């Protein structure tokens, strides 16, 4: 029983950044902008949060810095994808690579601790609320709120429409660019929060590439959730649960098989996405205009 409770608690903790990043990806892609750069934006958020919290001793300033850093990267992605009509995958990849290198370089230059930020004292980490990290609550509230905005407000309607047929939105007299910029900005802000959680709630400082592929995992959750809020949320929980189990399986000897390599368990979410999509949950149809820049001329 105790084991189960601690497994659930671990699941919740692991799920928070996945949910935030997953929702970031969902909003961006529903608006027609493919976002491979979730990982990089989260990492930028993690670095900014840890660095600022280490210097100022204030975790909330760190959160603010994380949101600002990831938000700016979101706008950079928007500039490439919306204004310059560039390739969205390339832009996202570029952000990932840039942040991975830049966070190390800046970390070395500023803190001279091998790319890490100085370990944070307890006061410079997120406090708890009702027995959980304070960020857990907004992350879980985000799902119903986000669903409600997407399906029950004009903004949500326009956002969904612009990812399916931007020309229809344009001829309806609504700016395609403004909607899409709003989407990438929201995505950036959410990734920033996710990054701050990773660096200043889960861990106590920044470590090289500490997001560890969670951005890609969040994207897999979006696909598995078919670009819908609650199913995406469920996929995030599922992946988080697997991750929590994986941590517990480390070193455990399974009869007949022996010790299960941890890499194997870590690969399970990706394998599951492929298997589930291939046979069990049916075809996942992305928003029709996702990945294509909107060009007005014929």
């Amino acid at each position: 029983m105790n084991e189960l409770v601690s497994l659930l608690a671990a699941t919740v903790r692991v799920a928070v950044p996945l949910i935030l990043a997953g929702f970031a990806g969902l909003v961006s892609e529903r608006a027609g902008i493919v976002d491979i750069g979730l990982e990089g934006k989260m990492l930028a958020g993690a670095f900014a949060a840890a660095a600022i919290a280490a210097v100022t001793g204030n975790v909330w300033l760190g959160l603010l810095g994380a949101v600002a850093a990831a938000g700016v990267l979101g706008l950079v992605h928007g500039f490439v994808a919306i204004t310059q009509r560039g390739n969205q995958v390339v832009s996202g990849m570029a952000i990932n690579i840039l942040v991975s290198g830049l966070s190390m370089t800046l970390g070395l230059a500023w803190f001279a601790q091998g790319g890490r930020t100085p370990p944070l004292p307890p006061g410079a980490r997120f406090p708890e609320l009702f027995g959980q990290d304070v960020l857990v609550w907004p992350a879980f509230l985000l799902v119903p709120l986000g669903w409600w905005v997407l399906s029950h407000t004009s903004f949500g309607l326009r956002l969904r429409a612009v990812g399916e047929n931007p020309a229809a939105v344009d001829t309806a007299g609504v700016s395609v660019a403004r909607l899409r910029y709003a989407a990438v900005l929201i995505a950036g802000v959410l990734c920033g929060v996710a990054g701050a959680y990773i660096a200043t709630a889960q861990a106590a400082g920044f470590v090289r590439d500490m997001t560890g592929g969670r951005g890609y995992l969040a994207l897999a959750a979006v696909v598995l959730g078919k670009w819908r809020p609650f199913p995406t949320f469920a996929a995030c929980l599922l992946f988080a649960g697997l991750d929590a189990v994986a941590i517990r399986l480390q070193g455990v000897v399974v009869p007949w098989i022996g010790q299960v390599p941890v890499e194997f368990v870590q690969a399970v979410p990706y394998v599951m996405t492929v298997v589930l999509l291939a046979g069990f949950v049916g075809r996942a149809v992305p928003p029709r205009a996702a990945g294509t820049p909107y060009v007005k001329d014929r």
Partner: protein
Amino acid sequence: MRGIDKSFAAVRANRGVDLAVARGHVHGLIGENGAGKSTLMSILYGFYTADAGDIRIDGAPVRIADSRDAIRHGIEMVHQHFMLVETMSVLENVVLGAEGGALLARHLPAARATLRQLAADYGLEVDPDAIVGDLAVGAQQRVEIVKALYRGADILILDEPTGVLTPQEAADLFRVLAALRAQGKTIIIVTHKLREIMAITDRVSVMRAGQMVGHRVTAQTSAEELGEMMIGRRLAARLDKAPTALGAVALAVAGVSLHDGFGVPRLKQVSFDLHAGEIVGIAGVAGNGQSELLEALSGMRAFDSGRITLPNGAIVGPGDPADAAARRAAGLAHVPEDRLRTGLLAGFAARESAILGYHEDAAYGRAGLLDWRRIERHTAALMTRYEVRPLLPKLRSALFSGGNAQKLILAREMERDPAVLLVGQPTRGVDIGGIDFIHRRLLALRDRGAAILLVSVELEEILRLADRILVMFDGAIVGALRPDEADERRLGMLMAGAA
């Protein structure tokens, strides 16, 4: 609209165009493809901005920089390709951009009521909860009209509204338009179909080659006059043509029909014989089945009924797969209408485009390996003979100008002396010198005894080259005539379906 000018790069799509539409009228705008109708309407709707000229509504000058301005002035357009989000419901599509406020729940009931009212007023029945993608084309068009009216449209522009409709759906549309007029709405209908103009408009304006040719009151004009205005007086500079030595039937087409994916008939009982040593020209406004005919004949598309007898005597029926390679092997060469998409490999080198479709020929390699040296020699020879410039077999196909790319394709298809050559729009986007060269080559091939089917929307081209002219309208062949008996009036009437 006064003195409207609009150019796209070197093309002047509108030149000093004037258009006056009276309130509460159905106004027709008619012209051939590329006459500038759609451009003019896109300017009125704010999709493009004019280079010069001004727009007045009820006498007051207005500036329409984008769709929002147009909507504010009560102008709405029903596009030829619907501007709908297929995954959403009818109601969501209708309110998109005009939701009334941030919260949908507060405003959707009112929108629902408005939809019911519109349905009652104009006979525009649509289920607000249906998903747009599930609706038939005619119903989707109704959604577009409802969407326009919901936004308070006073002036409604319809671009080729019947192009995608079944006859029944078109009849429904005309009823709706009549109801709209009765309620005082102003309607501009853009079309190339004379019969529709005569049936439902009050006034009509005719455009040709980017300019306004004239305005008429529909009741005081005739389909003949409009057809002539639309086509214009054209002096076909005749080429010196040897008289035809008509040979045996090279290609026999008997009762070929086909439907597209939406069940709309695209070809209706098309029958004709193509003889060795003649050029048969298919005239018609684009979109009347010519493309489908070429696709069915060349093996790009299967058909529903009828029979095609190939030059080698083989018979292709409705159940047979579309197999372009088999048609080629039977002596049927094809120069497709869409040069960049189907004619050549845009991103590949000229030498690769030059063997496309014949790449399994033993002359180009063995055992699945291509012999690039031979291919390059061959391509260079073709390019020399057909004056393709620049003479660079390794240059990317897309980088050749329209005329040179076309000559490369013609070279590929003509150099084997096919028994039958199908040619679609051979000189679209080709300069004058290139046009002359291509025309002479086509005539030379005919004089060597090939049968040529020439599909073109350029009437001059048809009049210049063809030994026989067939006119297509709405998927059927509606007339057959000799070039010397084909005057503008008759052709115009046939092409607009008024004969």
